[in-house]
């Protein structure tokens, strides 16, 4: 398959409000494959571009359950099955004493799942990405806001999409080479 030489068309905005409004209008205009970039998290922006499925909580839940089970079963197996030792007459399976490590392992696994799950779902680390080819994009980590329509969008048409973005009154428009 031949790759499209253009990755998308990117519009630059001055404020968070302008980006949210532009993202809403672009999505309402029927564009599906779009993304928005901002130097800080903006409440509700992800929903405006049609993102609803955040799987991070599920990953963390699974991580926590696995961690808790690992912690408890590890202690049970080591203390009561593999090498039971009589210490102070306490039963080998002293479940109240096992709670602390079960708790710590739950937190440990859930926390690791939160960080690495988030990175994996975001497809990070990704040192190269076409958007970095736009020189102005370096301001996306400072004070500028960007909206992109990907060329893979079914409604994408080089001239019409550029014209549509122009109507949103951006500060600048750039073509993103892939």
């Amino acid at each position, binding site marked *: 398959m031949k790759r499209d030489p253009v990755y998308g068309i990117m519009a630059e905005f001055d*404020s*968070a*409000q302008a980006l949210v409004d532009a993202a809403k209008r672009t999505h309402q205009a029927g564009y599906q494959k779009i*993304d*928005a*970039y*901002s*130097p*800080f*998290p*903006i*409440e*509700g*922006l*992800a929903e405006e*571009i049609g*993102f609803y499925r*955040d799987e*991070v*909580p599920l990953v*963390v839940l699974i991580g*926590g359950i696995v961690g808790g089970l690992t912690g408890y079963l590890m202690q049970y197996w*080591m*203390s009561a099955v*593999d*090498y039971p*030792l009589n210490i*102070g007459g*306490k039963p080998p399976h*002293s479940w109240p*004493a*096992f709670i*602390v*490590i079960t708790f*710590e*392992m739950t*937190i*440990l696994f*859930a*926390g*690791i799942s*939160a*960080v690495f*799950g*988030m*990175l994996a*779902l*975001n497809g*990070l680390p*990704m*040192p190269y*990405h076409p958007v*970095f080819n736009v020189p102005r*994009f*370096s*301001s*996306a*980590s*400072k*004070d500028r806001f960007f909206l992109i329509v990907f060329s893979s969008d079914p409604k994408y048409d080089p001239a019409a999409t550029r014209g549509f973005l122009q109507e949103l009154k951006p500060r600048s428009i750039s073509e993103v080479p892939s």
Partner: protein
Amino acid sequence: MDEQYKATVDTQAPVMEPGYTFGTVTEKISAIVLTRPASNGWFVGFGIAFLLMMMMLYAIGYLFLKGVGIWGVTIPIGWGFAIVNFVWWIGIGHAGTLISAILLLLRQSWRNSINRFAEAMTLFAVACAGIFPGIHVGRPWLAYWLFPYPSTMGVWPQFRSPLIWDVFAVSTYATISALFWFIGLIPDMATLRDRATNPVARIVYGMLSMGWRGSARHWHRYETAYLLLAGLATPLVLSVHTVVSFDFAVGIVPGWHTTIFPPYFVAGAIYSGFAMVLMLAIPIRKIYNLEDFITELHLQNAAKVMLATGLIVAYGYGIEAFMGWYSGDRYDAFTIWNRLHGPYAVPYWSLLICNIFVPQLLWIKKMRTSPVALFLLSGVILVGMWLERFIIVVVSLHRDFLTSSWGMYYPTRWDWMTYVGTIGMFLAAMFLFLRLLPAISIFEMRTLLPEAEVKE
């Protein structure tokens, strides 16, 4: 989340001085790392801290050569400085997690300008704390026996002991603190990557940023993960000093065997941690001209947290004394009498002065708003909290049930060199951190600006 966040900002004294934009906030914080040349003062400060750290390594090297006999620990006082310093450092770390996680859940937006370096403080304090149990085990080259690994001996750790709970609590705490710090740094690493002119810096910050580009989808998952991590770190931080207190409270030694220990340890940890936050924040804001970001509000709020936790600690001392009398146990009663009148009465009275009497000055608003006064007071509290751990460890052990086993504990120069050396290590790491990473979270500061507000 951000809208409720800002509702608290409007009603309070400024969390940040007005007049900043996304651009100027970014420039001001990243300039400390990227363009500001290192001053002579930085080199002198780092040099002194580094030399102290070398002294610590020398003391530990000699310890490995000779064994724990070079320390002041003897029977009956088998715990000594190593455990005192371990508990002190772990406690200091707690304020960082409290600021970054608990205040995030409570939507206290003022945390945004101090959370980054408070988290760094946590990491370095936990690193200092982690040294002590490792070198205290007698045969430090076998310290890995603490972890459950399939050994040729076939035995496993004793999971019914609080000491192994502590291994899990502290190592989980260190891991989660490091992850929390790292995840908070990712967007700021992207900012530094895009601002840096030095090609090496650009590559290093670029790698650390993981290729962060600020996509709305990424931010959404990022915020979810950050919030969940805060929710996980909150019970974790409360559990860590609780488990540390179990090391004492599960034992039957008079002065240790008490149920007040977990809450009183946690309060004491936050108390000393905020004192350390202030001791770091006050010089940092002055030297790097960050008074606009770390304002009087931050100093006042930290002072109020210290006042509140200090009163909980005072309540803990009161309950200890009350239970010494009320339990009717002669050994408990003797422990209290011995603290007040015994051979370690001077440290105990100093502890009461440092932790209870002097901090009452914080009721005065002038004290809470004067950086110099707060700096000195924080130093007093840190000394007091160190003395508290000294009293708990040493005074309880030196007079136990049988007079024949009574003894005295005198720290040696090796004890002092190791302890002072960890302070050097902590400060050296802090000096490096200030020059290499953004000391204030840039992206979280941007969210505090009025321009960050978006109407639907």
